[in-house]
């Protein structure tokens, strides 16, 4: 693996502050445990977004503390005890506002870069 390839793999790093949004989005369709959230992000971004998997957990806990997520222990698909997170009402609202903010921001950045 050459130097160039290494640089390209880094380009999938998350823009700071976007992880929260991705987590909320992952949980929009139903409760998941941490591992499933990581898988969902990998899968949905066609493996472009590299989430340092460990980084997910402090983020999940922070969102739980802020009341945007609700966590409870349940049985996983392989019948082990796992902590499942689901979106709360405020979490759903927060996701909506983050989505709008992101769309506006992305459009603005795209507009600036498209200019000459």
């Amino acid at each position, binding site marked *: 693996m050459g130097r160039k390839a290494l640089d390209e793999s880094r380009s999938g790093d998350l823009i700071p502050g976007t992880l929260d949004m991705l987590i909320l989005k992952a949980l929009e369709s139903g409760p998941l445990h941490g591992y499933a959230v990581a898988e969902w992000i990998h899968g949905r971004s066609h493996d472009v977004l590299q989430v340092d998997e*460990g980084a997910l*957990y402090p983020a999940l806990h922070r969102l739980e503390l802020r009341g945007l997520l609700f966590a409870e222990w349940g049985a996983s698909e392989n019948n082990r005890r796992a902590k499942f997170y689901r979106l709360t009402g405020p979490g759903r609202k927060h996701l909506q506002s983050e989505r709008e903010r992101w769309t506006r921001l992305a459009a603005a950045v795209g507009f600036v870069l498209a200019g000459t």
Partner: protein
Amino acid sequence: MWQNIREFILRAAGIFRKRRREREIAEELDFHLALKEASCRQNGVAPPDAIYQARRNFGGLERWKERCRDVSTIRVVEDLQRDLWLAFRMLRKSPTFACIAIATLTAAIGANTTIFSLLNAVLLKSVNVPRADRLILLRVQPGEYGYGFNYPWFRRIEQESSSLMQVFGFIRRDLRLTTPSGIEDVSGQLVSGTYFPALQVAPEMGRYIVPGDDRPGIPGGGVAVISAGFWRSHFTADSQILGRQLRLNQVPFTIVGIMPESFRGMDQDQHPDVFIPLESEPLVDAPSNSIAAGYRAWWMWIGARQHLRRKRSTMILRYSRNRAE
């Protein structure tokens, strides 16, 4: 706001449930690693490599555990240290601001906290009342206030120190007495209702002024107590004196009692002829009114009888001027 409070409570609770949280964090992260390892093995990675790969994808396990802990508890000591250091640096950066802030705080605290030193003046030992050694005069310390107090402070001290001592207020007033033959100056004392009960000298005749007499808005002046000397010189020791009226500064007072010859009150520079309630001050001082002037008028003295003989003669009473104003 609500969210901040909720977050604080949860974090505070996190301190106490630390062990359980640690266990839960470890369990949650282990679960993730186990699934990751299984998934690697399914993709054909050999078991030891699968564990290694799972850990590598995860990033330092201990580091993330640490970060999870940070989220759920308050790192009180570290944060406090950091805040103090930051505050100190900011103050050092702008010394003018720091000086003004410190000066303001000092002045504010100084103005709100007044120390009263209770002075057992040698003078008072000669006051001719029972247990005179327990009598004290209050003064404000530090400062050049001397013995003068304002009315609101008097009422506050009276309330707050009632368990330690019996507080009373008094001040001398020269009054103009209207007699059939003209106007005459007499020396008088304005005294609070607690004055006579605290001095514990029984009247020679009738009764003395009690708290019930010392109420705001006394109609027509209220009651007066006179000295035995004044009784003899002005009323020829008339035994029917009680209930008679005195006009002092054009205000009518009703004589209710006579104090014995030996009684001179707290003010040793004076030999008072009449005592009238403190609350009649607006009537006899009209048009000025020291009671209504509140904190601005430093016009009266405060004395007290201590319930117990105290070695230390300083007590601290805290006042917030704004609270009572």
